[in-house]
């Protein structure tokens, strides 16, 4: 009991120190600003930001697998879709509470990540990418041609979790929790092992790390969080159809993680918000919107290889230091 007390105190102390640093204060300020969004009472804005937050979890889960474990997957939509489907099915057909259904969906995503992960373990680089892509395409086609779980129409008419502002806070808490957990995993011993595997698999193997087990663990964690994102997506839209499996979603995750900055976890949030807000802002331009969107995407990828988050934060920090010196 005593030990826990001390631990708590040291944790709070570390948090206070972190909150006073530049990054800490920026993060807390943005989080505070984010939580104030529903107070404005703007339903449209809240809906967009809920979508962006769901995408952040999804993109962060991809970043976890690709950035830290070095396993580039082109089939992340499979985890997203599986969990969306099972969450919806358990709410609709079994009638369990949505939070139970969400974790059941996440569990199914873990099972599928094992199903995909075990056969694809031997593969590397483009082979792994195509292997995961093939799996997600097969699942997509199975749901498109099959008649189970609603067939082509999918499942619709799930009960709403509440009005959009309630959904906002639910999704926000899930996002914050998922990101903190993923960051904590990455900074822990497990994270170090995964980075070792990413940097040199042979060396990691020679150092006595069971690379197979750890790569599977990475797949499972990533699949679980992608699944949580998918379940939230289904609950937010109150419907799912086979389109959740489309390859486009896998690439959305990759693009969002890359825009924000890979190997950061938090960068995914920036990427997801930029991505969603940008596509929403361009919507009034109708036919030209996606063309402009694609152009901006090319420019960001071409000229910001590190992602947007870290360079911008460094600039800001310079300005911050200047102000503080005065």
């Amino acid at each position: 009991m005593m030990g826990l007390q001390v631990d708590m105190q040291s944790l709070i102390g570390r948090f206070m120190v972190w909150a006073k640093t530049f990054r800490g204060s920026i993060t807390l300020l943005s989080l505070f600003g984010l939580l104030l969004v529903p107070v404005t009472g703007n339903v449209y804005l809240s809906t967009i930001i809920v979508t962006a937050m769901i995408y952040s979890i999804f993109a962060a889960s991809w970043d976890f697998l690709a950035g830290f474990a070095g396993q580039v997957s082109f089939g992340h939509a499979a985890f997203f879709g599986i969990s969306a489907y099972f969450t919806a099915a358990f709410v609709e057909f079994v009638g369990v509470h949505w939070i139970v259904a969400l974790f059941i969906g996440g569990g199914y995503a873990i099972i599928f990540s094992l199903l995909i992960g075990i056969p694809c373990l031997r593969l590397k680089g483009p082979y792994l990418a195509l292997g995961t892509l093939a799996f997600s395409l097969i699942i997509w086609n199975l749901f498109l041609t099959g008649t189970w779980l609603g067939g082509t129409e999918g499942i619709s008419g799930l009960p709403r979790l509440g009005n959009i502002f309630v959904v906002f806070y639910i999704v926000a808490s899930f996002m914050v929790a998922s990101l903190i957990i993923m960051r904590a995993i990455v900074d822990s011993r497990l994270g170090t092992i995964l980075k070792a595997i990413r940097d040199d698999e042979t060396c990691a193997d020679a150092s006595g790390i069971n690379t197979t087990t750890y790569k599977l663990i990475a797949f499972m964690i990533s699949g679980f969080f992608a699944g949580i994102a998918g379940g939230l997506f289904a609950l937010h839209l109150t419907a799912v159809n086979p389109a959740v499996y489309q390859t486009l979603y896998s690439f959305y995750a990759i693009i969002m993680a890359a825009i924000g900055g890979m190997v950061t976890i938090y960068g995914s949030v920036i990427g997801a918000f930029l991505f969603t807000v940008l596509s929403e802002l361009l919507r009034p331009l109708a036919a030209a919107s996606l063309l402009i969107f694609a152009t901006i995407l090319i420019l960001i990828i071409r000229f910001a290889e590190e992602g947007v988050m870290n360079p911008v934060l460094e600039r800001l920090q310079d300005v911050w230091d200047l102000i503080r010196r005065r």
Partner: protein
Amino acid sequence: MIEEILIYGMVQGSLLALLALGFSLVYGVGGILNLAHGAFYLITAYLIYWILPYFIFIDNYLLRFGITAAISLVIAVVISAVTYLGLMEPLKESHIGIVLITFALAFFFEQFVKFVGDPKTHFIIPFVPGTVTFLGVTFPAQLVALVVGSLILVTLVTLFINRSTIGKSIRAVSQDFEAAQLVGINTNMILMATVMISALLIGFAAVLYAPGNFIRPNMGWRYLLLAFSVTIFGGMGSIPGSIAGSFIMGYATTITDFLISPTFSVIIPIVVILVMLLVRPQGLLGKKELY
């Protein structure tokens, strides 16, 4: 039945060979996973569709189509060179960067076609009219042009890679990038040439296969997936592997089409790929080590 499988398998195989050869070449030489590969099929097909009405004054359709196809191919190859120099070359070092930029590029071309033209489906009149009956099977004569054209092109490219100076440089770069640089090969130019050859090959696939078939803005992805699967099947970067792989895949798809069901033939190649990845990840004739 057997005659049909033989003929349509040949047709599928020739199409796949044109699609996959360039993709495999670019990956083998530069390690570039070109997700915009299918987009070059798309733009060549649409360029033909757009330019064709400008030459309406030429009465002979074959001649009109030939001129249009030549112009479209030149534009497509120039676009490929420009995109290589402007977008792919600076990001060559990072594997994920090249994947992202080529994906964004493919997305851009799809939206460009939708914006400039329209999202509807279009039809290009085949330049070889009529049908041919061979071994008791009647099929469009355009397909004969596809098979013959594909055989000629694949032979030419293989000869070019094996005999010409540029071809030898291409092989040198694919074997050892740094050593090739040391002996004075301009690796950048060689990579650009490879990307241009791949665009030319898939452009020819569009010239030979798009007429007589419907074209729509999102078709690039299907051809990309076909090229990707055949390349993995035959072995990344191996030219004989890609050719053998495309004919095996072509026959496999046709057999599923005829014996099981056409709805399954979409999914069967993917299953074949998956089995291949699990049994022999380096592909039919690929190099032993991966990466």
